[in-house]
């Protein structure tokens, strides 16, 4: 976002961001809650709604733009990052959001996702990860666990899943975060952080598909278990979790394990989170799918790196300043010419 849009904004409300379209997700779908959090957060980010664009691919999740009273483009399967790149480069003043699914963004669209991350174009990616293909009625996805029984894998899937934060980090991402659909407050704050970050923001949102993959995250959302399974990350703070924050993450020779705060271990043994440390972020990304470690939620990684379109604008300004008199007629007539009378 250019600074320009940060000023003179009249305060909008959640309602201003709801379009008049009927929401067509299955009743109870996690997408509803994500929509609500986005609509609640956007009035606070200081951008006029005409400067906001939601670009999506295809999937249940990708219907998202229809429900936002901003500019919206529901494109084709997997291509949202590339389309959004064009939007942002064409007009860097826009606040550009990509809404995608685990199939849309990591299967058919995987290449565009890793390339936009590498380029660090200043857009925000919201990846709704329900670990299933919803819209096409229940095939396994690249984030489904190995052995997943699905429409297309009646005896269980054979491919090891991607680990989205690890993939993002491996793609030179500058901002990697995670949130859970039904945890409203942390989700809101991640949406805000994604928006604040300059460069490509990658926010993975765990989302429940109650029709085809119900309960994929119930251990993280169930009141009974969630304190022991979710690790809320805070920059500069030790990685504590569990009831009364009595559990923590300890690094023993680069290997993370969970310890109980008490006699043997004290808070000072616990790994302190540092958003700017790529190695910590990598370690945290590897908690995914691990049953002996909690699931990190929050900002795993956030660093400032050169932003693609900033550099492009700079190159152009430089070229323009070097060629004040660049006009079409002189370009048309450049090179060796001769005249016929």
């Amino acid at each position, binding site marked *: 976002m250019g600074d320009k849009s940060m000023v003179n904004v009249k305060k909008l409300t959640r309602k201003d961001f709801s379009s008049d379209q009927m929401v067509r997700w299955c009743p109870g779908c996690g997408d509803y809650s994500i929509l609500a959090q986005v609509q609640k957060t956007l009035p606070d980010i200081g951008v006029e709604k005409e400067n906001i664009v939601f670009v999506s691919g295809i999937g249940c999740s990708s219907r998202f733009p229809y429900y936002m009273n901003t500019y919206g483009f529901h494109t084709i399967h997997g291509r949202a990052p590339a389309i959004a790149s064009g939007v942002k*480069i064409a007009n860097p003043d826009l606040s550009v959001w990509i809404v995608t699914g685990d199939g849309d963004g990591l299967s058919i669209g995987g290449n565009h996702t890793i*390339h936009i991350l590498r380029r660090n174009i200043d857009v925000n990616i919201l990846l709704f990860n329900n670990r299933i293909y919803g819209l096409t009625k229940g095939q396994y996805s690249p984030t489904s666990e190995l052995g997943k029984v699905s429409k297309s894998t009646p005896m269980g899937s054979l491919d090891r899943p991607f680990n989205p934060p690890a993939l993002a980090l491996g793609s030179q991402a500058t901002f990697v975060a995670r949130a859970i659909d039904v945890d409203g407050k942390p989700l809101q704050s991640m949406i805000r952080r994604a928006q604040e970050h300059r460069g490509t923001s990658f926010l993975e949102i765990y989302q429940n598909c109650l029709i085809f993959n119900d309960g994929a995250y119930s251990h993280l959302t169930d009141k009974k278990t969630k304190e022991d399974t979710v690790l809320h990350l805070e920059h500069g703070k030790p990685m504590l979790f569990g009831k009364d924050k009595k559990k923590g993450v300890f690094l023993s020779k680069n290997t993370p394990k969970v310890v109980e705060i008490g006699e043997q271990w004290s808070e000072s043994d616990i790994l302190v989170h540092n958003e700017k440390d790529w190695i910590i972020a990598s370690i945290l990304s590897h908690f995914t799918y691990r049953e002996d470690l909690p699931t990190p939620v929050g900002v795993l990684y956030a660093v400032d790196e050169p932003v693609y379109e900033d550099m492009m604008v700079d190159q152009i300004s430089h070229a323009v300043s070097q060629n004040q008199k660049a006009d079409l007629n002189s370009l048309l*007539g450049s090179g060796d010419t001769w005249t016929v009378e």
Partner: protein
Amino acid sequence: MSKQTHLTKELDHAVIRFAGDSGDGMQLTGGRFSETTAIIGNDLSTLPDYPAEIRAPAGTLAGVSAFQLHFGSVDIHTPGDRPDVLVAMNPAALKVHIKDLAPGGIIIINKNAFTEKYLKLAGYESNPLEDDSLIGNYTVYPVEMSKLVKNACESLDVPKKTVERTKNLMALGILFWMFNRPTEPTIRWLKEKFAKQPTIIEANIRALNAGYNYGSTTRILTTRYIVGKAKLPSGTYRNIHGNYATALGFVAAAERSGMSLFYGGYPITPASEILHTLSAWKQFGVKTFQAEDEIAGIASTIGAAYAGSLAVSATSGPGLALKAEALGLAVMAEIPLVIVNVMRGGPSTGLPTKMEQTDLLQALFGRNGEAPIPVIAAATPGDCFYASYEACRIAVKYMTPVLVLTDGYLANGSEPWRIPAAEDLPEFFPNFSPPDTGNGKFNPVKRDKKTQARPWAIPGTAGLEHRIGGLEKNYDTGEVCYDPDNHMKMVTARADRVKGITQDIDPLHVYGVEEGDLLVLSWGSTFGASRSAVSHLIKEEKSVAHAHLRWIHPLPKDLGDILSRYKTILIPEVNTGQLSLLIRATYPVNVKGYNQVRARPFKSQDIIDTINRQLD
């Protein structure tokens, strides 16, 4: 020795071909000869022909690179059927190209390259300079180029390799002398190009002069040729290549319409130079985005157009195939953008550095669903400028993607081009919707009465927030809609909008008899050979004519009427009959296809022969 010792001959036109190893700099040599020839006022047409490999091992047949040039004091429409002069820098070059030479033609040879090793690599059993395979059939001038440049650069402090590399300038010098061309433009060019390497400049200049002097001071070359100025319409000219012209057309369209130009694409032969050229024009605010693949190329282009840029891309056959799905989105969401397809030899990877016209049906039909897209094809290297310009104008006016077809020959070939004044280029403006401060709901499909174009409501405009996408939409509101009758209405509306472009298309120009026995109907780069052939036959007072299609979708309104006035419509195409299929399906006329898929442009003689056969 004085100049008088040489014969001087006047020619209408001449065809020369430079051939050598990929590393011998033949493209550069041909390019310099062309530029010089253009500057002195000839009409001309060129055909570079290089291998798919970067630099195959020296001396091999696979590594031969060539450049053909046809120039004259008369109208030149093709790079020439067969060379009058062949420059062969090594045995492989001779082997590959000798068969095309006109009978009695001149061959200039780098004798030093005719070593046993290279002869063997080229598959010669005996040295053609010594056996009798050439003598009598051709005029052969074996020149010890490698040795002569070594002598010329003796005192210079440059590596041997560099000296050896200047032998192409030596050959160029010989040809300059032979055809009476000045060396100054080349010297100027060398000085610019190697500004930071003065010894390189010096070595090259010496080689060039050595060549020129070789002509003037030895008696070996007996004849000099004079090819007078062509009677071109008055104006200022430059020599222009097709890909450069395409890029220039885009910048011109952006400047004239006051829009910002965005190019999103992925490199592919023979389209990459369009990206290269545009990327060097940042002073015009041009944004070039080298995407991860062709899909991202068009996707970014769609995004940029959606956001209000004049958005364009260029690719070649396989890349166009990859863009098919996204082109459908551009149709559905009514996104104005231009994609250039520089056709090359197919199918699949095919013959990547050669030309072909085999993507016409792909351009017309290569998408799922009924997804009509306007298609325009450039006729000559210079016309690439006007085709890409016009494509931009139509895209923006009708809010539609437009495809421009060029090919490898147009892309790399060149011709003298009369420089237009910016002011003379047709103006056009994007139909951006103004902000809406009232609180009425914006209708994103309220169409322009005349063009049926939707308004271009770009993000950033207050009050126009709306949603678009690839699902079928309601004709009246633009909202997602699966109603059967609405779908039919939209299918028809999309087709009609494209058909409506005929109101913007120039009527077809017929060259030759107004009605008669045979009309040659050409498209794309077949223009040149067709025009040459027909003008030749008109001189023989045959009842023939020529019409050339620039717009293939929609077809011009008057086409049917024109076609009906001839007994036979001959359609020459470098494919198996793609336009023929379309014309047969559209008009009840007698279509004969002349189809050669040899991955190179037609010779006008072939078309003349075909017409004659039809007329018999």
